[in-house]
Every structure is written in C-alpha cells, then in structure tokens.
C-alpha cells in the first residue's frame, strides 16, 4: 500500500513536471537559434541553409507569394501548409551532420531546398 502511495506520488509529480514543460515550452522556444527562409516565385530563398549539428532551430518560413505552399521534407519528418503572404514556424533538429532535402509540395519542380547540418 505504502509502495503504491509512493508510486502514485512520483507519477503525480512527473505528470506535473511534464505539464509544466509543455506549458513553458513557448518560453523555452524563445532561446533557440532562428533561421529565416522566404518563398518567392515558388522558390526557396535561400535554397540552402546551414545549421549546427545537435541543435534545435526555429525555422521561420515567409511565403511572399500570393498562393499557398506546403513545406515538406521526408528526411526531416516535417510538413506544414503556409498560406499565401504569411509566415510559419517549424522546429527542426537536433540533427546529426548530413544533408536533409525539403521541397514545396504544391510546386515541387521549382521549390526545392536543403538543410545542411555541420
């Protein structure tokens, strides 16, 4: 019974900590390096970004076109629709060194890019 009580209290504390982490995560996000990319004429500008290995970064994608685009990457496991003339935030990493391609799903012929992790 005592063991159960201790286990219950530990779980309760853990879930409280987890809840605090989730609630505070926007504050933690504020300290992450920010990388900006534009979408112009269905192209990513710049089309290559270099980020440090094992670091989480905040990617800000600004869609300067009037039409929507979907940022997609199989290698990064990321997908997000970005409406025309608006911006979106996508967190990527921490990643091991390598090259991670991404593309615009709505215009895959032109909207191609790479995240180079060094």
């Amino acid at each position, binding site marked *: 019974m005592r063991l159960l009580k201790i286990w219950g209290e530990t779980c309760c504390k853990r879930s409280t900590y987890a809840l605090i982490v*989730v609630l505070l*995560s*926007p504050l*933690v*996000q504020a300290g*992450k390096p920010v990388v900006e990319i534009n979408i112009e004429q269905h192209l990513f500008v710049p089309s290559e970004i270099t980020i440090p290995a094992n670091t*989480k970064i905040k990617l800000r994608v600004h869609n300067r076109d009037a*039409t*929507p*685009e*979907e940022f997609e990457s*199989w*290698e990064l*496991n*990321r*997908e*997000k*629709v*970005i*409406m*025309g003339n*608006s*911006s*979106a*935030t*996508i*967190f*990527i*990493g*921490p990643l*091991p060194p390598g090259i991670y391609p991404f593309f615009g*799903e*709505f*215009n*895959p*012929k032109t909207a191609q890019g790479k995240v180079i992790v060094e």
Partner: protein
Amino acid sequence: MLLTSVIIVLREILEAALLIATLLAATRFYSIGHSWLRISISSGIVGALIFAWQLRTISNLYEGLGYEISNAALQVLIYGVILVLIALLLKLYLCGTTNNKPLVFFMGFALCLSIIREGSEILIYFSGFMHNTETLSSGIIGSVIGAGVGFSFGALFYFLLSAFHKSLSLMVALGLLVLVGAGMCSQASMLLMQADFLPSQRPLWNTSSWIPEPSIPGQLLYALIGYEATPSPLQVSIYAGSIFISLTVAVISYTFYRRSTNKKASTHP
C-alpha cells in the same frame, strides 16, 4: 502541374477511401444502409471548406503553431472515434442489429473528420491554381486522375476484404482500425514534435531504402498503418501505446457484449 495534382490528390484521398472500404466491408453482412456515407461525405466537405477558409487564422494561433495543434487534435479525435467504433463493431457482431444508430453516427463522424483533415489540404492546393488559366486545366485533370486512382484503390481494397467470411472480415477490419488509429497518434506526435511540444529524437530505424515514404507502397502503408521510414523512439512508443489501448478496448468490449448475449440467451431460451 498534372503530375503534382495527381500525387497530392491521391495522397489525400487514399486515407478516406481506405477507411470507407474498411467500414463498408465490416458492416456488409448487416442492413446498415449507405445513407450515412452521403451525409458524412457532404458534411466532411463542408467542414473541409470551413477549415481551409479559416486555416490562416488557425495557423496564427498560439505563436504560429495553430496548424500543428489543430491537426494533432483532429487526429487524436479520430483515434478516439476509432476506439468507439471498435467497441460498436464488436457489439454489432455479437449482439446483432438491434440499435445501429450509434455505430452509423460514429462511422460517419470518423469519415467526416478524415475528410476535413485531408480535404482541406486539397482545397488549399486548388486555391493556388484556380485563378491561373494556364494551369487550371492540367490541375483539374490531374486531380480527377488522382481521385480516380485513390477511389480505385479503395474499391480494390473493399473487394479484397469482401473475400473473407464474416468473422475474418470483422477481424481484419478491426485490426486495420487499430493500426489506422495508431497511425493517427503517431502523426499527431510528429506534429507536436514539429511544434516543439514534444522532444525531437534521432530515428530509431531507417527503412527509407526498402520502402521510401513517397513511393506508392510507402503511401499505401502510410494511409493504412501510419508507416514512417524514420520514426523516433517516442513516436514508436506512442504508436505501440495506442495499439495497446485499442486492443484493451477490444478485449473489454468483446467480454462485455459476449456476456450480455449469453445472459439474454439464458433468460430467453
């Protein structure tokens, strides 16, 4: 443009088409009717229109992470509806067709949510080329081909499931619902990682050289079992955990409805 439209529409329609096929195959021995399909598809399209129309506002919520939160919420809701469906399909199988209204409602609700999620993306894609006369025709033709291929996969899948007898058909359908539900939870967790609400981790394995995610088998498996070529340990744990919950619901429902059927049989010999 043509190929892009085919791929986008096919990817989005596949999940709903396979869900329709699974639900129709599981209930084909009972007089449920198909009116729920009509209502569910039309309300799903209306919901998708509203979602697509409001996506800009939704995306800007919570410091620009509204897209991830709303989509993850939809996926978790679909998982919840699938849990209810598992219980109700077992009830239908064990107790027969006494009151099908809850089953019909939740089948329609699951499909409606799935259409809202996938359909809104198709509508947003359409909005990008609707005003451009150069790309309009190839976009529409590509979308029709994509939709045709998607629904053909659904029809093929339905006939495949229909080849099984009653109990095996139900077992396969339940198994698929369990995996579709787990896929929803896994996708929701990935979106929460993208929004930094859950920690991102290195992949547990990499099967992209065997079954690449963009390939047709990869997309079919994605729609059916939530296939990911490079899942993180947390994603795999959430996937396994959701399967465990679904199986627990199935076992509890089976025991409960079996007992109540036996009780009825003993009181009315």
